[in-house]
C-alpha cells in the first residue's frame, strides 16, 4: 500500500480524535470521594445539581468510608474529598496532600437501639450509655471500616472507660514491614459485631439483629423517614457534645498531582461555603427535620 493511502485515513482519525476531545473537554467533570453518610442521607442529590446549574461543572461522586475516601485523595484518584474525621483530615493536610481545608457543615451522631431499649440507655450521656451497653448482654454493631463514624465509636469506648484492645497485623509496605491496627473493645466479646460496611448497611444490619449502634443523624433520618418501610430503630441518646460530627471539604493539592482539576475542585469547595451553598445545606430537610447545620463563618 502506498504512503498516500495510509495518510488519508490517518488524517481523518486525527481530526476526529481532536473533535471528540473537544466535545468531551466542553463538559467539565470532577471526581469527588466522600463518605457514605453524605451520599446515603440524600444531601448530595440536592446540592450537586444546583452546583452544576450554577457553574456547568458536573461532579462524579464515589461514596466510601472516610478511610478509603482519604486514600483516594492520597493516591490522586480524585480531585476533591468531602469527609468527617478531623484527626485524619489534619494528618492529610500535614502530609501535603490537600490544598486547603474548609469547614462546611456539621450534624451529629446518635446512638440507636431497639425501641424497648433492653440495656436501658435512653437519655443518658454518650459515654455512660456506651458503658451500660458494654455491661449489658446486648449486641452492638460496629462499622469496623476505619470510617469517620468508626473513629467516633472508638473515641466513645475510650470515653466510657471500656478497655480497648489492639490487634496488630504485619504487612509489607514499600519494602518495609508496617503493621495494621484493629482497635476494638475486647471485653464485649461476641456481643460486639464488626461488619466492615457502610452506614446504610450497618443500620439495616442493626435493625435485623435489633442491636445498638452509632450513626450519623442524616443517614438515620433518610433510612427512618425517607423509605417506604422505615427503619425499626429508635434514637436513644442524642445532643451530647461528644457526639458532634463536623464535615470538611479538601481539594487535592495540585502540587502533588498536577493533572487533577484543581480549578474546578476549588470552585466546588468555595461554592459549598458560599451563602448559596450554605443556605441549601441549612434548608435541606428529611421529612421536615433539618439534617445538617452550616459551619462556614459568614
Amino acid at each position, binding site marked *: 500500500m502506498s504512503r498516500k493511502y495510509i495518510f488519508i485515513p490517518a488524517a481523518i482519525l486525527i481530526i476526529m480524535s481532536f473533535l471528540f476531545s473537544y466535545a468531551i473537554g466542553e463538559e467539565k467533570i470532577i471526581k469527588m470521594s466522600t463518605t457514605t453518610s453524605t451520599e446515603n442521607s440524600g444531601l448530595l442529590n440536592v446540592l450537586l445539581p444546583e452546583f452544576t446549574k450554577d457553574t456547568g461543572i458536573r461532579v462524579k461522586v464515589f461514596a*466510601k*468510608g472516610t*478511610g*478509603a475516601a*482519604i*486514600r*483516594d485523595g*492520597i493516591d490522586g484518584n480524585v480531585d476533591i474529598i468531602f469527609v468527617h474525621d478531623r484527626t485524619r483530615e489534619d494528618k492529610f493536610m500535614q502530609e501535603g496532600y490537600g490544598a486547603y481545608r474548609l469547614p462546611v457543615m456539621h450534624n451529629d451522631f446518635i446512638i440507636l437501639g431497639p425501641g424497648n431499649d433492653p440495656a436501658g440507655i435512653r437519655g443518658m450521656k454518650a459515654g455512660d450509655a456506651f458503658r451500660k451497653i458494654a455491661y449489658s448482654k446486648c449486641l452492638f454493631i460496629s462499622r*469496623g*471500616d*476505619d470510617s469517620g463514624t468508626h473513629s467516633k465509636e472508638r473515641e466513645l469506648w475510650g470515653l466510657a472507660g471500656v478497655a480497648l484492645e489492639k*490487634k496488630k*497485623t*504485619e*504487612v*509489607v*509496605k*514499600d*519494602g518495609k*514491614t508496617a503493621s*495494621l491496627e484493629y482497635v476494638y473493645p475486647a471485653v464485649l466479646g*461476641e456481643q460486639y*459485631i*464488626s*461488619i*466492615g*460496611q457502610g452506614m446504610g*448497611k450497618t443500620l439495616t*444490619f442493626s*435493625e*435485623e*439483629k435489633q442491636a445498638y449502634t452509632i450513626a450519623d443523624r442524616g443517614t438515620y433520618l433518610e433510612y427512618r423517614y425517607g423509605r417506604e*418501610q422505615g427503619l425499626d430503630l429508635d434514637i436513644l441518646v442524642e445532643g451530647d457534645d461528644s457526639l458532634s460530627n463536623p464535615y470538611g471539604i479538601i481539594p487535592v493539592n495540585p502540587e502533588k498531582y498536577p493533572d487533577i482539576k484543581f480549578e474546578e475542585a476549588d470552585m466546588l469547595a468555595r461554592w459549598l461555603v458560599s451563602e448559596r451553598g450554605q443556605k441549601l445545606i441549612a434548608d435541606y430537610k428529611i421529612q421536615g427535620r433539618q439534617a445538617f447545620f452550616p459551619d462556614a463563618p459568614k
Partner: protein
Amino acid sequence: MTFFIDSFRSALLLLWHIDKDLLVIVSLSLKVSFFSTFISGIVGVPLGLAISMNNFRGKRILITVLHTLLALPTVVIGLFVYSFISRRGLLGSMGLLYTPKAMIIGQIILILPIITTLTITAISRIDRRYRKTAQTLGANPYQTALVIVREARFGILAAIIMAFGRVIAEVGISMMLGGNARGFTRTMTTAMALEFDKGEFTMSVALGIILLMISLAVNIVLNYFQGKAGD
C-alpha cells in the same frame, strides 16, 4: 511492581505468623464452600442424571433454562434470598440472615445450575452403547445409572471442582447474606473487599494470594481423586 512484591511478602508474613483472624476467616470460607458444594452435588448430580437419561416434553427448554441460570448474578440471588429470610420476610422468624447458613443457601442457588448442566454435558459424552449394554445385560434403571455415573465420573468431578471454585471466590452473596461480621461471617473474599474499602490494598491482595494458595491445595487433592477416577 513494588506493590505486588509487598503484597506477596505480606501474604507470607500472615502465613508465617499464623494470624488468628486469618485462620477464622479461612476456615469459615472453606466450611461454607464445602457445605454448599456438597449439598449442590448431592442434589445436582442426580438431577443432571435424571434429566439426561429421560426423554420428556420440554427437556430442551429445561436445559436452556438451566443454562440461563448460569448467568444469574450473585446480587440477584442475594436479594432474592434476603427478601425471604430478613426479619420482615416469610422466614424471618428463623433468624437466618447474617449467618453462615444464609450464605450456604445463596451459594447453593448459585452453583446448583453449574453442577446440573455440567453433569448433563458429562453424561451426554458417554457412549450410548454403555447404557444399551447395561440394559441388555439385565441391569435395572438404578444399576444403569450407576454404570453411567461411573463412566462420566471424570466430568462430574470436574463439575464439582468448578462449582467449588465459583463459591470460594464469590463475594456478592457472602457480603449480602453473611454481612461480613468479623469472626462470624467474614470470608476471605469479603475480607478482601473490606481491606480494599479501607484503602489497605496490600492486605487485600495478600489475602487474594492466600485464597489462591488454598484453592491450589484443594485442587491438588481433588486432582488426585480425579486422576484415580480417570484411571
